[in-house]
């Protein structure tokens, strides 16, 4: 479980996140949604410690993460996996080496055991016969899946996904969403997904935090979101003309 209390973050004196409080539970996919520039990525990067926060608390179970030193954070980070918006695969390494990297860095397994784990993770995300390809030889969807394989290589307790569907076609996006949901349930991970894709919201939004202009604006799940009377949320959810028509026609 991850708990955020009264988080405040600014850049050059300009507030980007104000008074954000939320709890993310394990075993379900927790979504952070909002318009571009609303502060979603800053929130996610603050939660994982890539940004230092000015005020508030970030708890991982019973550990106050934002007050830990580098070594303390390193321990928690060994239980994190993260999927970045652009996949962030290491260009100079092959698919196999990318997934192998955290295993080589943080485990004392034998080479055989490590390769076995790499193949297991790659199979789990449906990447077959691509071990020796470089990231530049992969499609966008394959890159995301390899990045997920790398993120789960160390059996993380916490999985973070920043815009996992950006740049993907709708069918591949649904596959990636389904994969994240399956893995979350399978390993009882606390998963936080940043997205502004409404398809994702309706597919995997078991818990949804909507932020607007750096503030928490609404909290609920995919069943509540269509019936909310929050105007800002409705402007976001029913932004496209098809959704607007369906809403006005009562469907």
């Amino acid at each position, binding site marked *: 479980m991850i708990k955020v209390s009264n988080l405040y973050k600014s850049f050059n004196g300009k507030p980007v996140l104000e008074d954000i409080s939320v709890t993310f539970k394990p075993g379900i996919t927790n979504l952070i949604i909002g318009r571009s520039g609303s502060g979603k990525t800053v929130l996610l990067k603050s939660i994982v410690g890539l940004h230092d926060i000015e005020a508030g608390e970030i708890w991982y179970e019973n550990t106050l993460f934002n007050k830990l030193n580098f070594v303390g954070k390193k321990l928690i980070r*060994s239980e994190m996996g993260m999927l970045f918006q652009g996949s962030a695969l290491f260009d100079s390494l092959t698919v196999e080496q990318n997934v192998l990297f955290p295993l080589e860095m943080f485990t004392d397994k034998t080479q055989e055991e490590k390769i076995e784990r790499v193949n297991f993770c790659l199979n789990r995300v449906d990447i077959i016969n691509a071990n020796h390809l470089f990231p530049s030889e992969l499609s966008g969807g394959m890159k995301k899946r390899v990045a997920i394989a790398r993120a789960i290589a160390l059996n993380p307790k916490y999985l973070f996904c920043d815009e996992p569907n950006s740049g993907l076609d709708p069918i591949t996006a649904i596959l990636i969403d389904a994969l994240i949901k399956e893995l979350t349930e399978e390993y009882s991970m606390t998963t936080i997904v940043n997205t502004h894709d409404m398809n994702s919201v309706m597919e995997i939004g078991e818990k949804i935090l909507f932020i607007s202009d750096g503030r928490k604006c609404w909290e609920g799940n995919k069943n509540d979101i269509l019936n909310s009377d929050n105007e800002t949320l409705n402007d976001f959810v029913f932004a496209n003309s098809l959704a607007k028509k369906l809403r006005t026609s009562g469907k």
Partner: protein
Amino acid sequence: MIKFLSQLGLYFILLKKVFSKPEKPVLYYKQTMREFVYLGLNSIGIIVIISFFMGAVITLQTAYNTENPIYPKYLIGLGCRDSMILEFSSTVAALILAGKIGSNIASEIGTMRVTEQIDALEIMGVNSASYLILPKLIATLFFNPVLTLVGIVVGIFGGWIAGTLSGVITSENFIYGIQYAFIPYYIVYSLIKTVFFAFIITSVSAFQGYYVTGGSLDVGRASTKAVVYSSILILLFNVILTQVLLS
């Protein structure tokens, strides 16, 4: 002034991170071997070509400026030797390497920063500064002196070829010149300078790349800054080290 001081502070904070204990030394070793190839072995070609032609030009210019019979001919060989040892193989070669490996380091690390690969390392709990920069530092600190020695030998060889083929000096005179009044300390002086310059090139370029923000344009700018700042610092430290080591 405040911006300069804050940048200087950031530079030293980065160095502190770079020199912290490695997570898994065996991975750092592999990375260092890779950097020996990318930053060291791959630079031999350019050093050989430039040293050869610089040695040749130094020989010809010395010959055409010392045509007066009171100057012994062997001074041409001596001039070529000392120019290559004292200045060219360390300072001029460092300026060339600042362009080649400095821009390479800044753009590689900068691209990793803007494509979130450095964030990915940090999330895994890896000390990204140390993992990315320390192997490059070790590789250049150990390999650039080798490049300097190669530069000296090839430069003098280039001078001998140019001098004898053009007929401005005989082979015997040139070889006598390069042996005449040889001071071994000059080689030590040159190697000490090279080590300082290698540190400047690698750390300044890595600093520019590591703290880049934005996109590809900013990576390009960081790469240019890396070359410019490294070159200026090399010239500055050349004066300081010359005064300290030769006075």
